């Protein structure tokens, strides 16, 4: 009986278990940074969910943070989709990161279509990771994206500069530049409510 209950709690991620984060199943995707994996309650990027990255401005190392996960996804044959990137992705750098360029799709839709494209991409089972640089997403839209991510078993990342409203994402992280790399602060997580920060050494 107790085992059944435990199993049920393990399988159902919707049930919140208070501060017992240590018992939460470690089923996330490895971020590639051991310290960050340790910090994140699911032991990595949450599986099949939406993640929000708060960035003060582009170019503090936000892609470096996602680089190992993208490289792993593309090595496993999944597609990585970038939606509305703010600048031109430099192909030779991405190649140097171990990203398979044949598995990278860059979509530049008008800003009002970003959410639609993202939902379509997340629903694709061939798509492993979706990175989007949206402006002013509504909570209800993000809820829809979360469902799409679960349906397509893919990871959606929203990179945001001026967050206005609290979005219903599985994990919210803020990044700040630091002399030794970048300071990563976990602001919200669906599996635990620890507010912690670490400094990661990410070098371009």
């Amino acid at each position, binding site marked *: 009986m107790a085992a059944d209950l435990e199993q049920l709690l393990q399988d159902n991620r919707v049930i919140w278990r208070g501060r017992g984060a240590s018992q939460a199943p470690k089923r996330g995707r490895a971020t590639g940074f051991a310290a960050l994996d340790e910090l994140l309650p699911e032991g990595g990027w949450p599986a099949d969910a939406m993640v929000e990255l708060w960035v*003060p*401005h*582009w*170019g*503090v*190392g*936000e*892609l*470096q943070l996602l680089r190992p996960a993208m490289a792993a996804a593309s090595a496993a*044959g999944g*597609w990585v989709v970038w939606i509305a*990137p*703010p*600048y*031109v*992705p*430099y*192909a*030779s*750098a*991405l*190649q*140097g*990161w171990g990203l398979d*360029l*044949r598995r*990278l*799709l*860059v*979509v*530049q*839709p*008008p800003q009002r*279509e970003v959410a*639609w*494209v993202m939902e*379509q*991409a997340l629903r*694709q*089972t*061939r*798509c492993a990771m979706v990175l989007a640089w949206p402006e002013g997403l509504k909570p209800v839209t993000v809820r829809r994206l979360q469902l799409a991510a679960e349906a397509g078993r893919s990871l959606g990342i929203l990179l945001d500069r001026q967050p206005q409203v609290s979005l219903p994402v599985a994990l919210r992280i803020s990044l*700040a*530049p*630091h002399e030794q790399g970048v300071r990563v602060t976990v602001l919200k997580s669906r599996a635990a409510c620890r507010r912690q920060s670490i400094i990661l050494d990410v070098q*371009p």
Partner: protein
Amino acid sequence: MARRALAGAPLQQTLFEPTPPESRSRARPAYGALWAALHLPRLSLEVLSGEDADAPRLVAQLQGGQPRAWVVSETAHDAGVRTGMTLTEAYALCPELVVIPRNQEHEQAALRQLAEWAGQYTSMVSLEPDGLLLELACSLRLFGGLDRLLAQLRSDAAKLDHVVTLALAPTAQSALLLACCGEPVVVEDSHALRSALGGLPITALPLSAKQAVLARRLGLRTLRDLWRLPSDGLAKRFGTGFTDYLDRLLGHTPEPRLAYQRAPTFSSRWAFPMETDKHSFIFHALEKLTAQLVRFMRRRALSLTRLEVVFYHSQRPASRMELGSRQACHEAAHLLMLLHEKLEREQLVAPVVELELVVTEFHDFVPAAHAMFADGMPQDDAPWEQFLDKLQTRLGRHAVTGLQLLDDHRPERAWDYGAPLSGEADPQRPAWLLPAPQRLANSLQGMQLLSEPERIEGGWWDGFDIRRDYYRAVDGGGRRLWLYRDLNDRQWYLHGLFA
């Protein structure tokens, strides 16, 4: 008495007139074929554009490793240039000669047009590299006999833009051979075939160089000399391929030929009871037409990548909507999804009275290949391709791209959107590139250079000449920048961000 008379009466005579004996002898047997060969000796010249047609011209073709004259225009012929000459010889004879390489694609296109034209005489039209073959025996009754049919064919052929030699024989190869030799003869009877062919030179046959030498050594000049030789000896000396050809030439072995088939096109219309601009009505019509289209494609094992919808309006010219798919597509659901996405974004210029679905180009349907011993889920690319189609239909072709590396060291030229390629990786490059380098107004204020300069220069060969020293830097806000100093104007520029 009456019963016996009735039983004895021959029934056939009361129903059918007996066929007169003379017409029976004229009727040819059902299996006898009659092939008309249309040879176009000057096709390579005729497909060229008509400019300065009087100038001496020559169409060259690679033969035995060097270009030789393939077809020679009349003025060049007058100057002494002959088919088969090398270009040096031809130029020596006629210095103002214009030499044009042979364009076989244009020739084939012209032949296909001619095949369409020839379809009015017979259903069996077969394409040859420089001519057509028409099976006429099946059309004799329709045209009222061979003489009439030939007369019409000759008068129609004279109106064409091509020089045509027409020969008729009971086998395809013999008709072709006669036409190629420029003998406009008509051989109706297969018994007369040997004597009709007998006078032709043996060099007219498709012989290899070795076989031609052998024939000369044996003293064979005309085909008549060949007829006198025993066939087993011929097979020993010339190979069985040659005797096979002779058998087909004389009709001893049958030669099935492929009939020309015109490329299928699809067009279907839908008339609305009254003019409408309601998308739901239009989409309903498109659904019905798409169902027809899919049935059409399924019956012929086709798929498409491009289709067109034409909207007809009452007092205005028709408007069009084009739809493309990345991969050959044959499913109704996918087509309808694309049409729906496109139609949602389409501004109709006016209410629609009638619409038409047109497909002019089809591809062969290639079914998905499944691995025989695959375990687990088959890797099916179809949903992903459909997803890409959907994005491109909604956002436009340019908005959905991959990235590729180009073989160039200059940052602006080292990448491109488009189909992915392999290239050399460069780990010291930033992930973000600015669309165009941005000049730093107040130089390096508040920034800190982090690296030694990296010189990137060159490009005089294509007009995009750069001389730059690249640095990595960090600004006051903690952004890692990729800067360069232009060595030409001594200014600092921001070119990328290490994200």
